[in-house]
C-alpha cells in the first residue's frame, strides 16, 4: 500500500523534471570552460595532437599509399610517438574522469547542494544538467581537435578531404564523445557514491586502469575456464575465438579500439576469426565502403551509448535516494 502511494505520488509529481535544466547546464558549462583544470587538459591534448599529427604528416609526405590521407593523419604512428588514435584512447578517459569526478561530492562538501536543492528544481535537472555539461564540454574539446587535425591536413597536404573520409572521421568523433561519456558517467557515479573527491577520482582511475591494463590478462585467464574443455572440431576452435573476443569486448577500451580500426582503416574487413570459405571472392586489400564499415561496428557504437546511459541511470537512482543533510 505504501509502495503504491509512493508510486502515485512520484508519477503524479508536479511540473517538469527538466525545470532549471538549462540554468544548471549553462553554469556547469561555464565552470568547465573557464576552470584551470580545463586549461591544463587543453594544453595536454593540444600538444599530443600536434605532435602525433606532425609525425604522421612527415610520414605521409615522404610517400606511401595516396588513399585516405586524412584518416592516416589519425592512425599513423612513428617511433617514439604513438598515433593520434592511440593517444586519444589513453587521454579521453583521463579527461572525462577529470571533468566529472567531483561533480556531486564537491557540491556536497561546499554545502551548496542543500541550497541548490531548496530551489524549485528537481534533482533530475541538477544531475542531468551536470552530465550534459560534461558531455558538451568533451564534445567541444574533441571537435576542436578534430577540426585542428583537418585544418593542418588541408594546409600541409594540399588536397581536400573526400566525403568518405569526412564521414568516417565524423563517425569516429561521435564514437570518441560517447567513449568519453562512459568514463564521465562512471566518474559521476563515483562522485555520488563517495563523499571525498579524491576517493572518487582514485576509484574511477582504478576502473580505467583495470580495463586498460589488466582486463586482457583477466580475459585470458577466463577463456580456459569458460570455454570448451576439449578442442576437437573447428566448431570448438571458433567458439573459443568468439568467447575470447566477447570477453575482451566487455572492456570499453577494446570497443573503442575496434571502432577506431574499422572506421579509420577502411581496408580492415573483419575483427574476429575469418574462415577461408568466407574469403571466397573477396577483394583482399581493397577498402570497404563506409556503409559496410558502419554495419561492422554498429553493435560497438550502440554498446558505448548504452553503457553510458546505464551508468548515468545507476548514478541517477543513487542520487535520488541520497540523504542530502550534512
Amino acid at each position, binding site marked *: 500500500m505504501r509502495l503504491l502511494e509512493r508510486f502515485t505520488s512520484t508519477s503524479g*509529481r*508536479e511540473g517538469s523534471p527538466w525545470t532549471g535544466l538549462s540554468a544548471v547546464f549553462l553554469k556547469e558549462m561555464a565552470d568547465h570552460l573557464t576552470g584551470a583544470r580545463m586549461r591544463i587538459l587543453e594544453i595536454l591534448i593540444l600538444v599530443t595532437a600536434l605532435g602525433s599529427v606532425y609525425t604522421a604528416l612527415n610520414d605521409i609526405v615522404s610517400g606511401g599509399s595516396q588513399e585516405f590521407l586524412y584518416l592516416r593523419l589519425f592512425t599513423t604512428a612513428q617511433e617514439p610517438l604513438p598515433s593520434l588514435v592511440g593517444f586519444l584512447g589513453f587521454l579521453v578517459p583521463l579527461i572525462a574522469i577529470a571533468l566529472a569526478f567531483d561533480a556531486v561530492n564537491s557540491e556536497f562538501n561546499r554545502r551548496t547542494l*542543500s541550497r*541548490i536543492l*531548496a*530551489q524549485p528544481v*528537481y534533482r533530475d535537472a541538477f544531475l542531468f544538467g551536470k552530465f550534459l555539461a560534461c558531455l558538451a564540454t568533451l564534445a567541444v574539446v574533441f571537435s576542436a581537435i578534430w577540426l585542428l587535425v583537418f585544418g593542418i591536413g588541408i594546409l600541409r597536404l594540399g588536397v581536400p578531404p573526400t566525403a568518405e573520409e569526412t564521414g568516417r572521421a565524423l563517425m569516429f568523433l561521435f564514437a570518441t564523445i560517447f567513449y568519453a561519456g562512459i568514463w564521465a558517467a562512471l566518474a559521476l557515479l563515483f562522485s555520488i557514491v563517495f563523499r571525498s573527491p579524491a576517493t572518487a577520482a582514485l576509484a574511477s582511475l582504478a576502473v580505467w586502469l583495470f580495463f586498460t591494463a589488466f582486463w586482457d590478462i583477466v580475459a585470458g585467464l577466463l577463456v580456459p575456464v569458460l570455454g570448451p574443455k576439449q578442442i576437437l572440431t573447428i566448431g570448438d576452435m571458433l567458439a573459443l575465438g568468439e568467447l575470447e573476443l566477447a570477453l575482451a569486448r566487455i572492456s570499453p577500451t577494446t570497443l573503442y579500439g575496434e571502432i577506431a580500426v574499422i572506421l579509420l582503416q577502411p581496408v580492415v574487413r573483419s575483427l574476429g576469426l575469418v574462415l577461408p570459405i568466407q574469403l571466397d571472392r573477396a577483394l583482399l586489400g581493397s577498402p570497404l565502403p563506409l556503409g559496410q564499415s558502419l554495419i561492422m561496428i554498429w553493435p560497438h557504437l550502440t554498446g558505448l551509448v548504452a553503457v553510458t546511459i546505464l551508468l548515468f541511470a545507476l548514478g541517477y537512482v543513487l542520487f535520488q535516494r541520497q540523504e542530502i543533510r550534512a
Partner: protein
Amino acid sequence: MSEFVLEANNLTKRYGNFLAVDHLNLAIREGEVFGLLGPNGAGKTTTILMLLGLTEPTEGQVRVLGFDPARQPLSVKARTGYMPDQVGFYDDLTARENLTYIARLNGIPYREIERRVDAALERVKLTEVAHQRVGTFSRGMRQRLGLADVLIKEPRLIIMDEPTQGLDPELAREFLGLIRGLKEDGITILLSSHLLHQVQAVCDRVGLFNRGRMALQGTVAELARQVLGGAYRIQIQADGPAEKLSDALQRIPQVIQAHHAGANRFEVEARDDLRAEAAEAVVKAGGRLLSLNVEQQSLDEIYARYFEEAKHAAA
C-alpha cells in the same frame, strides 16, 4: 487556505530504529517569527528538511503555504526560502554570479534578475562587494549573502537553520536586525537556534524541542508560566525580621512563592508585576525597604529548568 502558513501534523521521521522526529505538531501563522529551540540532535534540522520536502517524512502531513511539499515540491520551494545552517557558495564566482545562478534556477525572467539581485544585495549591505569572489568573504558576509540568496525569490516564508551560529555578538545583532526588517515586510519566519537570548529578541513564539518532540510551545511569557510556574521574579533588599517579612510577602495574592535568600535579600515569584504590593507588605511588616527589582524570565532560565526536569523525569 487556512490561517496558518505552515502546518505539520504528526510529523515523524525514523532512521532505522532511531526516532529523529516523533509525532510533531506545529502551526505557524502568517507574519509570525517562530523560534525552534533545542539541543543539538533534537531533530530540528530533520524537521526543517521535512517541511521543505528535502527529506521524506516517515509519517504525518505537512502543509506549507497550502501546498504539500512531498507532492508539490516546486510550488513550495518557489515560495519558501531556506537558509541551511552552514550556507555554502561557489567560491570562484562573485556574489552577484552566485545570486544570479539562484535566480535562474527559480526561473525568474532575465530582465527581472538584475533588479532582484541588486535589491537583495542592497538589503544585506553587500552592494560594494558584489563583484568580489565569494572565496574572499568573511563569515558574516557569507551569512548575509545567504540571506540575500533567500530573498532573491521574494519568499513568503523563510526557514533558517541556526542563522547566527558562528557570528560574533556584533554581527549576530546586526543579523537579527535584518530578520526584524523582514518581519516588518510581513514575511513569516521559522528559525532554529540554540542561542536563546537571540531567539528571545526576535521571536513572537518559540517551540521547545526535545528528543524529536515538541515539548512546549508558546510565547516566552507563556513558557515561563508553564515551566517556572511564574513569569515574574521580584528581588527585594530589606532590613528587618526575616521570617516576618517573608511571611508577609507570601501572603500577597498571586504570589507563588516567597523566600529569604540570605542576608537582607528576599525573592518573590509572582504571576504579575507585584512590585508595589511587595513594597507595601515589607513596610507594613516593619521592614526597611532598600531596593526592589523585577526581572523578567529569560528564555535561558526556562530552557535550563525544562531540560533539568526532563532529565530528572527520564532518570
